[in-house]
């Protein structure tokens, strides 16, 4: 059972770097430049059926 650690822990390390890279992509794409908008989007959502 313990041997699974030798697979899972390196995997989790790899996952950390992968998620880090995904976040970096989002950041670089400007997703976090405007932190005020999402608060307003809740009020302005377009839920009217088209």
């Amino acid at each position, binding site marked *: 059972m313990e041997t699974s*650690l030798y697979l899972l822990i390196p995997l*989790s390390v790899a996952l950390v770097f992968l998620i880090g890279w995904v976040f970096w992509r989002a950041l670089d794409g400007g997703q976090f*430049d405007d932190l005020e908008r999402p608060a307003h989007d809740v009020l302005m959502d377009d839920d009217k059926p088209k």
Partner: protein
Amino acid sequence: MLGAERAFCCAGCEAVARAIVAGGFEKYYEAREGAGLRPDALPPVQVYDDPAAQREFVATLSEDVREATLILDRIRCAACLWLNEQALRRVPGVIRADVNFTTQRANIAWDARITRLSLVLEAIRAVGYDAYPFAPRRGDALARREWRSALWRLFVAGFGAMQVMMYAWPAYVDAGAGTLTADAQALMRWASFLITTPVVLFSCAPFFRGAWLDARRRRISLDTPIALGIAAGFAASAWATLAGAGEVYFDSIAMIAFLLLAARTAELFARQKAGRELDRLARWMPSFALRFVGASTERVPAHLLAAGDRVLVGAGERVPADGVVEEGVSSADESLLTGESRAVAKHAGAALVGGSVNLEQPLVMRVQRTGADTQAAAIGRLVERAAASRPLLVERADRLAQRLTYVVIATAALAWAASGNVWIAVAVLVATCPCALALASPLVLTRAGAQLLARGAALTRSRALEALQRATDVVLDKTGTLTLGRPAIARTACFSDIGAAQCRALAAALEASSSHPLARAFCNVGQGPTVQALRNDAGQGVEGRIDGRRVRIGSQRFCAAIAGSPAPEAKAQVYLAGDGRWLAAFFIEDALRPEAIPVVRSLARRGLRVHLVSGDDAAMVGELARRLSIEAWAGGATPQEKFEYVARLQAEGRVVAMVGDGLNDAPVLARADASIAMGAGADVAQLHADVVLTGDRLGALEDVLALSRGAMRLVRQNLGWALAYNAVALPAAAFGFIGPWEAAIGMSASSFIVVLNALRPLDTARPWKPASTSSSPSPSPSYS
């Protein structure tokens, strides 16, 4: 419309409302925070399609795709931004339209084969707003890079900390039970090491860089203890991992980094926001102007304008430079500079300030000052200068923080030596970082500057906030401060059956063409009868015929020559006489500002002693003091005497705030603890005062006093908190009561408290409202 009968102020508004509803945007009406503006006749936008004009602000993404950033004008609330974005997205050919709610800019990309920039801009016009492209400023890009890099560091630290905590958990649970094999433990350590390394090397780089820069200058900065703490902890843990023996605390290191960065990022966010407020003068300068070439106009970049150019400013457009009106009658919204949202009437000869909005009719203006010489730019520089001088209290706190840093490092070294445990030293270094002391005030000062500016007062030295807050006495000058600095009729004495109003109308008709300084007193009277055979007798007066009868206005002697008798009233400045009879005498004086009486009264109510010191005739000054119920006054004072008056008050231990016109009373302003100048006229840049009331409104004085009290109160609270926290945390960490991670929580919580406290309303005397970032010129109702 929308299921109910709606009233519109005009057909234009109705059309706009129909366009909004027909587009399916009625949500706007549910979410908006107030009535919209009246759409004015706006200048054509086709000029923006010109490739030459586009070079500065349109980027070519691919062969057919163009990109530009637009400034959205007339935005008042989030609903406006949403509406603009929806309208932009409906334009055929627009590939992408993103409105940033924080900066109130729109970034759009469109297909040049399908649409043109002018069509996009017109879509915004159609829903009642205005937009124009602009070239991004360098500062904006810098701020964005700073923000992104801060977030990226924070994320790496936060995510790293969580992950490392998972690897540390088994060791904590297992502690001594021995169910975890040595190999598994080593694996966890190596994984933690691998993830903590980028957290330390990348996320904490700003701390190391700051510490290193100061170390090279043989100084210690606030980053030094943090850098030392993190480096020591990481080195010890790394060594333990490599050697395979000893304690590792990667989880604590990553968590310390995350919490410290979180506090810093929050501070950066608040600082950038306050900075944008402060910067808004420069932001709103239009990038284009319509310059006359002969009889026609051409659109040129605003920075190419030169003094002497004639420029057409359309209704609803912003004035591109400082200048005077040559043709046209309109009104302008100067709230950006003055904080006063009431429109100011503009006619030929009136001064226009760059950045203000021309509201009603097109105006032709002659440019006088452009770019860096404009009033808006001068105010911007004054405000920037404010940061160079900090209140004494803040300077003392900074020196204390510096000294505290040495104490912290010495204590950490001692604790390490005494206990032999590096983790106690790390806890001391992290827990008692005097960051909160350093964070306590800059944010408050920046916010105070921005809010004062929004209310028409430019703070040029932050240090003055302290004196303003402690002020016990307010010394007011008369001319130009309590008064408007221009003549007005104070009293009319009538000597015939012709009433006072008619006498004034006669006088105004006669004086209409006179250039005598006192003639300006009559210019507000209104339309008078027609005058024939007007003759100007320089220095004496004016003679003319009204309804066939000879009338004279001017000096006593000049009028006595036709009146034939000595004047019944000897002390007036201007007389009016007909053949053989006296008509009226006018007492002219410098008109009191309408807000003078309430402002003086409110100052007295605040418990301030108000003084009136003037170089004018003592009798007049005394009379004015009585009207304003000011007990302490001095008339006929020379500049030297004014200076001594203030010095005498200070010798009694009073703290004096002096309000003057800023030009003639420079010495006394310099002597006073805090100086405030009325920003009338054009020479804002030459005023030597701590605060310049840019709107030339005395009422802003109250805001200045209220805000300075509020700001200094927040600064004191923050400093008090930071000191109290450190006084508790230092011994607690040194004696090993708190571990490194607890120290990190304490330290970041302390920073957060300070930052959040700094974001509280500065002005408690009045309900706080966020400074509006757009203009709201006319209170006229519109779209239903």
